[in-house]
């Protein structure tokens, strides 16, 4: 019962803080519209890079443009959802350095919810929009015989993918308790992770694919379930049922990230400033 209360309390705090930031952004509506559009452009750059590459070749690592687009759309949309919810986690280090993190600790609301909603930026809808548009195009242009299992797997992938990325964000935030000035390490795993997943697994070295399958299981965001949908050989010769494990992987990742966050929070020592 206690856990349940903390969760509802956390969601409520999150909603209130996020609402405050949305209201402040909405004060200048035109500016908000422009930043959403700008966000769409900025996040679309990596897709332009893929289009540029395919203007020169017909396949990359043996994958066609619609197939790569499918991976891209899944990775970016899932990441976009996480980025909307937890995207401001990287200001945590700055808050610890300037001492304003201490004020979050004394407020009667779960710290993780406060940190997640800190500087909540609705403009990040730009990335989700861009990812969803690309995914939509991919879904109609890939050469796939759609079965009910495949159709159902797509939303499952998005939700579990967002949860896996969420775990990476929270674990990265927990790491900031150790290294207060190292927000960029977090970007290497979050932004780096989503960039990696935009390309087919066949492009990368075996060891790198092993690493992001068994150590940091990003491969379950789109590579593993995606190969099932596209009817491609599995990376690392995984069994076919592995395509349906992303929800389990997501739950395990979130549990581990939650533990890391608690350990990090317990080890926090104020700078005193």
């Amino acid at each position, binding site marked *: 019962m206690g856990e349940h209360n903390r969760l509802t309390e956390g969601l409520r705090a999150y909603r209130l803080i996020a609402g405050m930031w949305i209201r402040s952004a909405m004060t200048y509506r035109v500016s908000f519209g422009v930043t959403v559009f700008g966000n769409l452009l900025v996040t679309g750059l990596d897709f332009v890079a893929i289009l540029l590459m395919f203007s020169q070749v017909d396949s990359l690592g043996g994958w066609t443009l619609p197939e790569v687009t499918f991976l891209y759309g899944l990775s970016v949309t899932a990441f976009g959802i996480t980025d909307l919810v937890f995207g401001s986690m990287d200001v945590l280090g700055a808050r610890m350095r300037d001492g304003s993190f201490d004020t979050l600790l004394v407020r009667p609301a779960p710290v993780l919810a406060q940190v997640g909603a800190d500087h909540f930026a609705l403009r990040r809808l730009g990335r989700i929009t861009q990812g969803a548009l690309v995914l939509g195009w991919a879904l109609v242009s890939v050469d796939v015989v759609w079965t009910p299992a495949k159709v159902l797997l797509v939303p499952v992938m998005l939700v579990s993918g967002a949860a896996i990325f969420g775990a990476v964000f929270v674990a990265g935030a927990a790491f900031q308790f150790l290294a207060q*000035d190292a927000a960029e390490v977090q970007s290497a795993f979050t932004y780096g992770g989503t960039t990696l997943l935009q390309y087919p697994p066949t492009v990368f070295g075996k060891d790198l694919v092993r690493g992001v399958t068994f150590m940091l299981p990003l491969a379950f965001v789109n590579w593993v379930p995606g190969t099932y949908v596209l009817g491609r050989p599995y990376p690392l010769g995984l069994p076919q049922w592995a395509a349906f494990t992303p929800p389990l992987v997501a739950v395990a990742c979130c549990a581990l990230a939650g533990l890391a966050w608690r350990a990090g929070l317990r080890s926090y020592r104020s700078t005193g400033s």
Partner: protein
Amino acid sequence: MGSARLYAAVAAGGFRRYATYRVATAAGVFTNTVFGLILVYTYLALWDERPHLGGYDQTQAVTYVWLGQCLYATLAIQGGGVEKDLMARIRTGEIAIDLYRPADLQLWWLASDLGRALFQTLGRGVIPFAFGALFFPMALPADVSTWVAFLVALLLAMVVSFGIRYLAALSMFWLMDGTGVNQALMVLGVFCSGMTLPLNAFPGALGDVVRVLPWAAQLQMPADVLMGETAPLGAYAFQAVWAVVLLWAGRLLQSAATRRVVVQGG
């Protein structure tokens, strides 16, 4: 001679300021190495399909990737150099203090940015580049003169990069909010500098356009000089023309902007 000492001191200040953040620098090194790894594999796959794309072989494409990661922070390709400070000073009005200093505003900020760029090259660029050279076959020159020629091209690239960002920062005198300008800097910088794909691999007319824009002076020119793909003198001429045009435009805009400054009393 006194003023040369002054600007050297300003540059040293810029260097030291960024050197203070050691953990952040180490984190940046790690991030650039990770992104370099991802890009290298995609480039290798691309050059596997299309050998000699853009006139590069695979080792040259790999070299280009790691040079990009090395110069990413140096040239503030996404923005994030001294123009951030300058924008903040314009917004808050602290720029008025800079204006009555007995020093040239543009040279002051250029010196500071060169100091920053030098630190970013040494602190943040060298290690990812060395990592790349250690684990991937790269097309590096064996003779010292090519490396010297590359360093000259790099210095000119730093000046061109500053020229672009200085113009962007001065726009704050009219706009008062840098969000849009910063986003434009980011999009143009990443795309037109060739961070996504070498500019000589861009297709058709698009390629012709991006290769004459000032951003081509930043990563493409130093890379081509390093790998012996272009004659240094031609590259220098291209970079120098853009440097002069941008700095001159900066001067014009600066004098127009400073006429607008109203110092509030109180």
